[in-house]
């Protein structure tokens, strides 16, 4: 994820030597696996994995009780869907050998040639498989983040088709542009340490488009569509915060000082943003809410994500404070003014927070933190802000256009939107045939020996 240009330069000097001593070099390459780095990145991958079940709880608590299972199912099934897609084709499209600076080719289809030896282009000290699976977790959570925008009203078959197409047609190319060797944004020098652009802008903007295409939930604006279980949401936010240490610190791809720095700024920005959100909300509405604290920390985590490997702790405080305040205004003021029903505020938190984070990286980045990075505006390099802006714009356009086209294509084959009856009944019953809180069970087992609604 970080530019390993120093390492690449050193490798260049080695080329003549390598030609002379080819067999010896091949051995040395295998020996370069670092046990500490490998352990750290594998565990970081597991931490990023837990973010998606965390997201399921975060979102699940915010919907009405009749939609809790369908909302949790979105995240859960995306873990399964993207895990298989990534191994088959996603990884090679995102990180495979470059094709036209736009996409990876199919050389690593089905993980062909992705094995236990490191790939020095991406991470020289860990097995290539570790890098691959770490990246998989990012692809999973990105697709899962979008589901908050169309919660409580999208039909399941259309959701499945959309998610599979979206991760293949939007996520994989965007990851290649920003992180793939020879991707055009990477070549341009756009900085995105752990996915502010690739993960958060893409999911946030896609969520906005999906919310607009699907339309508002029934009763939006006339009846209260309130969270049914805020403790569940807070638990989800805590798991997200916890997993984010793997997301950001793990993106150093080594157990080193840079990972430590990313860990510290991540926690700092999350905390600052939660404080800012609560304070602004307190001044605006007179109450410091728990949902505000839980949402604010996520806004801070989103904003620090692209900057995590490039900034020092004090700018991290500022990045967090601004993220908390700006995302609050996006959710509480902008959304209400414009009237779109982004049900769980994917755009307000991830789209807006991700955009701020990407630009803030262009302001506060310093080579003192990461020599492989770049200096930002406040360290004398105004050009970096421009480069960041290009990255942001590219992600916005790809996500918006891609999502719109995919939804239109999917709608030719499957109905996107639940019918009025299905929505009224709740998606848990209408889409999945289950009730999240079956406190009074009616009915009897149906058919011969088949178990019905009444449970086991």
């Amino acid at each position, binding site marked *: 994820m970080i530019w390993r240009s120093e390492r690449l330069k050193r490798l260049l000097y080695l080329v003549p030597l390598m030609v002379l001593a080819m067999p010896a070099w091949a051995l040395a390459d295998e020996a370069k696996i670092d046990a500490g780095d490998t352990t750290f990145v594998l565990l970081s991958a597991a931490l990023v994995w837990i973010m998606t079940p965390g997201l399921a709880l975060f979102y699940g608590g915010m919907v009405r009780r009749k939609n809790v299972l369908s909302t949790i199912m979105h995240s859960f099934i995306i873990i399964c869907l993207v895990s298989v897609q990534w191994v088959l084709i996603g990884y090679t499209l995102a990180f495979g050998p470059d094709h036209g600076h736009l996409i990876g080719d199919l050389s690593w289809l089905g993980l062909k040639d992705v094995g236990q030896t490191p790939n020095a282009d991406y991470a020289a000290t860990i097995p290539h498989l570790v890098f691959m699976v770490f990246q998989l977790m990012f692809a999973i959570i990105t697709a899962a983040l979008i589901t908050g925008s169309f919660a409580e009203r999208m039909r399941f078959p259309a959701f499945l088709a959309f998610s599979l197409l979206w991760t293949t047609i939007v996520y994989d190319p965007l990851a290649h542009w920003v992180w793939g060797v020879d991707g055009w944004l990477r070549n341009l020098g756009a900085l995105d340490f752990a996915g502010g652009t690739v993960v958060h802008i893409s999911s946030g903007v896609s969520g906005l488009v999906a919310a607009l295409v699907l339309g508002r939930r029934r009763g939006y604006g006339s009846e*209260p569509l*309130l*969270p049914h279980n805020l403790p569940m949401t807070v638990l989800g936010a805590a798991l997200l915060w916890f997993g984010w240490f793997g997301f950001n610190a793990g993106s150093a791809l080594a157990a080193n000082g840079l990972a430590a720095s990313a860990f510290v700024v991540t926690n700092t920005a999350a905390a600052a943003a939660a404080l800012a959100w609560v304070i602004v*909300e307190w001044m*605006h*509405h007179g*109450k410091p*809410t728990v*949902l*505000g604290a839980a*949402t604010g920390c996520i806004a801070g985590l989103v904003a620090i994500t692209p900057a995590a490997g490039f900034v020092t702790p004090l700018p991290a405080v500022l990045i967090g404070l601004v993220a908390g305040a700006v995302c*609050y205004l996006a*959710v*509480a*003021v902008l959304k*209400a003014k414009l009237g779109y029903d982004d049900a769980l*505020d994917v755009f307000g938190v991830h789209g807006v927070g991700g955009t701020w984070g990407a630009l803030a990286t262009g302001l506060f980045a310093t080579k003192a933190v990461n020599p492989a990075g770049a200096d930002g505006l406040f360290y004398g390099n105004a050009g970096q802000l421009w480069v960041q802006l290009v990255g942001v714009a590219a992600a916005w356009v790809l996500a918006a256009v891609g999502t719109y086209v995919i939804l239109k294509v999917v709608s030719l084959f499957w109905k996107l939107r639940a019918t009025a009856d299905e929505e009224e009944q709740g998606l848990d019953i209408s889409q999945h045939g289950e009730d999240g809180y079956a406190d009074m069970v009616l009915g009897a087992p149906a058919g011969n020996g088949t178990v019905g609604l009444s449970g086991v």
Partner: protein
Amino acid sequence: MTKIECILRPGRLEEVKDALGKFGIHGMTVSQVLGCGLQKGRTEVYRGREYSINLLPKVKVEIVVRDDQVNEIVRVISEAARTGEIGDGKIFTYRIDNAIRIRTGEQGDDAI
């Protein structure tokens, strides 16, 4: 026989139960209900959006008593449930035809 149905503040349920117990009434059905009346609702805020919640949580207590006990029991419940503020609730009484204890088949006053 008369059914007494009272809508109470959730916080006064224990006092009412105690008072009824002292009066010798031990059987009752209690449910959590939502309702509105003179009492104004409250405002809740979720992600900066205000919602006015005008249905407030109450408890409903239902008991069935002999007709000659009704006035006394209504007084006992009223005293136990009253705070003097708006929102103390209401008591309704209904004449009922019969009561049957399912286990024994006893009917009328014997069954309550």
